[in-house]
């Protein structure tokens, strides 16, 4: 089957590499950018920065709570700390440290979280955090960003270095299509309408933006014209873009590599229910933990791939 995709790719790369390359560039642009990592420098792709700026990089050992506190302190001293570890250890393990020392204290700390979601793959559910977006978006002051590919992750990393305030940046491990432009401008809090449509809106974030692009082509073959909106910033949410699109299409699907409870879909539902109640179908993990497997197998088994977005779009359409 050859689909007529509105976005295509020639290369695949992991989003964590987009982070690593963006981090290095941010470090070259601003001498106040510093890095911290809890014994996962290679996995987070922070090694190039460490090599070029050894005096501005701090290996903290396997001690995430301390790392978050250190980052808050460095921010007090005028630095722009990027603290990196796996998303699981960057959120649930250190929630109280983030809450008190970073969010409540409004510190300019960038929490950089790799290996988020099911696509972490074979390591299994202990490491596949599916609750991080919910935890982080509940914190006042926190900005929450989940970019979709290498280029967008790199652009987001550069953007958060220039933004003043606490940020949670989520990215992942698997090699993934690079389908957004290298020279994109990343505007925090501004949704990106990637594909125009009239029948149903697909709001997607992270790796599932690619699945949404594929789903759009599949739906189009059946005569259904879906609008695809890339919600790279979960908080602050671009409510205007959401409402404008749903006003036109009349129904929507949310797609995320996260629990349905507390994720992007919940935020969209809150927006719709207050301003324009409309059918919304969720593509996300339904109150369960993950397991070992390849990213493709896991997205299929847990109902997160393009086929599932297509099914959800049809359910939403039927409810119009």
């Amino acid at each position, binding site marked *: 089957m050859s689909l007529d995709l509105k976005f295509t790719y020639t290369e695949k790369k992991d989003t964590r590499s987009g982070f690593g390359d963006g981090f290095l560039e941010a470090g070259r642009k601003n001498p106040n950018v*510093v890095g911290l990592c809890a014994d996962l420098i290679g996995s987070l792709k922070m090694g190039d920065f460490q090599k070029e700026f050894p*005096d*501005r990089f*701090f290996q*903290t*050992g396997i*001690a995430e*709570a*301390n*790392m*978050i*506190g*250190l*980052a*808050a*302190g*460095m*921010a*007090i*001293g*005028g*630095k722009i*700390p990027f603290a990196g570890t796996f998303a699981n250890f960057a959120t649930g393990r250190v929630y*109280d*440290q983030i*809450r*008190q*020392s970073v969010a*409540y*204290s*409004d*510190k300019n700390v960038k929490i950089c979280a790799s290996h988020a979601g099911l696509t972490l793959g074979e390591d299994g559910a202990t490491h596949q955090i599916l609750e991080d977006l919910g935890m982080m978006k509940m914190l006042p002051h926190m900005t929450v960003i989940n970019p979709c590919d290498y280029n967008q992750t790199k652009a987001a990393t550069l953007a958060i270095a220039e933004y003043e305030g606490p940020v949670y940046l989520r990215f992942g491990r698997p090699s993934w299509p690079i389908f957004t432009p290298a020279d994109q401008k990343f505007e925090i809090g501004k949704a990106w309408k990637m594909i125009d449509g009239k029948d149903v809106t697909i709001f997607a974030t992270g790796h599932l933006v690619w699945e949404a692009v594929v789903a759009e082509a599949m739906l189009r073959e059946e005569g259904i014209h879906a609008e695809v909106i890339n919600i790279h910033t979960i908080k602050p949410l671009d409510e205007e873009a959401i409402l404008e699109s749903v006003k036109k299409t009349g129904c929507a699907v949310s797609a995320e590599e996260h629990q349905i409870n507390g994720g992007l879909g919940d935020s969209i539902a809150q927006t719709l229910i207050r301003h324009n109640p409309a059918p919304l179908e969720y593509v996300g993990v339904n109150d369960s933990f993950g397991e070992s497997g390849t990213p493709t197998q896991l997205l299929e088994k847990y109902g997160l791939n393009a086929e599932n977005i297509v099914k959800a779009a049809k359910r939403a359409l039927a409810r119009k």
Partner: protein
Amino acid sequence: MKKQSIEELQNICTQLRRDVLRMVHAVQSGHPGAPLGCAEFFVALYFDQLHHNPDFNMDGKGEDLFFLSNGHLSAGWYSVLARSGYFPVEELKTFRKLNSRLQGHPATHEHLPGIRVASGSLGQGLSVALGVAQAKKLNGDDKLVYLLMGDGELQEGQVWEAAMYAAHYGMDNLIATVDYNGQQIDGPTTKVMDLKNLKAKWEAFGWEVIETKNGNDLKSVIEGLESAKSLTGKGKPVMNLLYTEMGYGVDFMVGTHKWHGSPPNDEQLAKALGQLEETLGDY
């Protein structure tokens, strides 16, 4: 900074104790015990040791900075900050009340001068102070970072993560003090969770450790802080084990955990204030 005499400093300690008792009494909530025990430390630090600027800049560049990890000592910290000119002394009457900058536990959200990070959830202060100390090193700033922690607080695992980091990175621009009063909410630390040999623990983690055996004697506290300062700049973090008595200065409050988080009633306040002469004028 003009050095004040021990008598003058002692008067500030007495006033701080009055402030603390009146503050917690007024709202019938808060933690009087530990700040009473740390009055000499607070006053020695702010009125004798710190090179600081009450005009307050968040980044504190070129200044010695103090952080309070055991945030429930807020009443004592607020008093010493107000008395050293960070904000009006009258503001102490807003402690723990609605729309106040003087939150139950220290916070930055209303921008109270002197506070740089929230504390209250225990065990986080050493990490933050180390981050600030690390930033000072990056900024080529040779001033010091001071921290106060509770002894019960050392039961938190994060403290030991930070202890390891401090020695590994040779954080010799930090002086941490532990309020070693041997009490916590549920009782004596020896019964709740024994800290055993604290000096040996910190030494084993690679710290320089000094002991200030009489933490409620102003001269000893100043000597201890001077001695701690003389150990900075030598490649190791410095720990000052400050032996205090919780509730010091009021005969019926001293030496027990019972006044950790309980305010005095009217009669008890009157009795307590009778033992503490008003020196600088009540707020």
